């Protein structure tokens, strides 16, 4: 990904054939990029610009017919910020993201350490582990909704009497738990690959020096996979901040808005209330927060390559 940014710098120096490319060929190579460039411009640049514009105008259902969208300044932002829903959704989004990152990292690292060992059936099991992550989200969310409904088979196992999705105290915890379950395969695959590259001679040397299993993990394995940990954690933050589909399918944001996120609020404003301007305003706030972590990611990824 952005890791390749820094790799390019080495390539230009180490590959002599590049010096034979002519200016004309460079232009031809640039031409290869044009379709993708136009696509990104039209499907990312333009929507982002439009989202920014929409957040400053009064854009509602009538706009589609009349084409009129009067400029309203920061009214949309003021309107969404003055509702009690937005602070609640912001707190929920932060809670979901923080809990997901910490627990997914912990569980993912533990499982990855386990699956790095060699034992019969290892490959088959790690393959099966990928399933929750590969299935369409709607299907996994549907089965969880069924397992945790009032008569659901999982309630007795959890010593619950009614569905957690109906309980404002438990609904958010249930959404977080399912989100973690969904993301664990990603962590296990990434971190298993990283742990397999930990230098074996260092581990052996540490063992000869009398380091125990825990010591070897803490002092050798963990520091050497730190770049992958940092990158996958930042990616999880970025992807969890925009969480929308999972709460929408599991609870619809309820009960009593207990599982509303910035994503579900933006969705409801635009596609339930047809207040596209306000929906865009919430979407832009979400984009801004995401961008902060994206910059952190770019810094981390480039530093990782330099090391």
């Amino acid at each position: 990904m952005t890791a390749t940014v820094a790799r390019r710098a080495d390539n230009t120096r180490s590959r002599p054939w590049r010096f034979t490319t002519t200016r004309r060929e460079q232009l031809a190579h640039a031409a290869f990029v044009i379709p993708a460039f136009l696509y990104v411009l039209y499907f990312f640049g333009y929507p982002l610009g439009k989202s920014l514009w929409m957040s400053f105008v009064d854009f509602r259902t009538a706009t589609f017919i009349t084409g009129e969208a009067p400029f309203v300044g920061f009214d949309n932002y003021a309107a969404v910020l003055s509702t009690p829903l937005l602070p609640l959704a912001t707190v929920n989004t932060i809670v979901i993201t923080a809990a997901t990152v910490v627990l997914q990292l912990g569980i993912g690292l533990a499982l990855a350490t386990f699956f790095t060992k060699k034992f019969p059936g290892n490959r088959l099991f790690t393959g099966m582990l990928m399933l929750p992550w590969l299935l369409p989200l709607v299907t996994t969310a549907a089965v969880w909704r069924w397992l945790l409904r009032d008569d659901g088979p999982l309630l007795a196992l959890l010593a619950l009497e009614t569905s957690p999705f109906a309980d404002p105290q438990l609904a958010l915890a249930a959404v977080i738990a399912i989100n973690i379950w969904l993301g664990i395969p990603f962590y296990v695959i990434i971190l298993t690959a990283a742990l397999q590259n930990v230098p074996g001679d260092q581990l052996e040397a540490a063992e000869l020096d009398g380091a125990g299993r825990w010591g070897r993990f803490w002092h050798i394995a963990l520091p050497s996979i730190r770049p992958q940990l940092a990158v996958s954690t930042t990616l999880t933050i970025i992807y969890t901040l925009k969480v929308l589909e999972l709460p929408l399918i599991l609870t619809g944001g309820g009960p009593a808005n207990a599982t509303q996120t910035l994503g579900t609020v933006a969705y409801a404003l635009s596609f339930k209330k047809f207040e596209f301007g306000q929906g865009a305003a919430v979407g832009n706030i979400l984009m801004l927060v995401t961008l902060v972590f994206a910059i952190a990611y770019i810094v981390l990824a480039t530093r990782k390559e330099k090391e």
Partner: protein
Amino acid sequence: MIQRNRRSAWMQTAAAAIIIAVMLYPIFWLISGSLQPDASAATIQAIPRTFDLASYARAIADQSRSIGTSLIVAIGTALLSVTIAAPAAFGLARLRSRFVDVVLITLFVAQIVPGIVLSNSLYTMFSSIGLLNTIPGLILANASGSLPFALLLLRSFMLELDPEILEAARLDGATSIRSFLSIVVPLSSNALITAGVFGFLAGWGDFLFALTLSTGSELRTITIGIYQYIGSPNVDWSTVMAASVVASIPAIILLLLSQRYLRAGLGAGSGK
């Protein structure tokens, strides 16, 4: 010593089986529930006594059209994103300028734009050019989601191609387009398949674009079909489970056929 090692390896296999059983517990229930006539009742069994396929018949009767729609959207997404990404990835792997860094960072930012921000704008854009409620509209929207990933994945692969082969072709007088089509594409087939598999899965599993850019009555994907099931007042859970199993089949087939491609893609996704 060897004996003990072997035994401890098998102990680990047993522990792994338990971990998998816990992790796949919901998926086990998904299949079990789909095979029982009344998954909505509290009397549901963990292991079905008889295999009842009636809910599959209902699910397929209801959803055959939406399955077809999803298949076209998924294949279209895979083809469109790979077709646009492949030449661009080649160009970016060969270009030598600061411009490349700008493009790569732009692509990364594009990849993290929240879907709802895109949906919100695409809805208004599509409504003015008549792409709402159309299959091409869904393909274009989904391909915009998979394009940045496909491009970054393919570029990092194409950087590893042996430059001498291309240099030889160039000395033989091959144009850039020719060397791309007859050298780069065949050599990159693994990476192209990986990008295609991820594009397919993104289009097949897409929920947000289908929810926002189609009404669900004139044009409906399988994911929206399932969502409409669970949104109805009296949910027929057996049919929901059967439709969910059907919707999971492409992912399971791809996992069986292309585990290594999926792993490669996941690795690339983490910026490895």
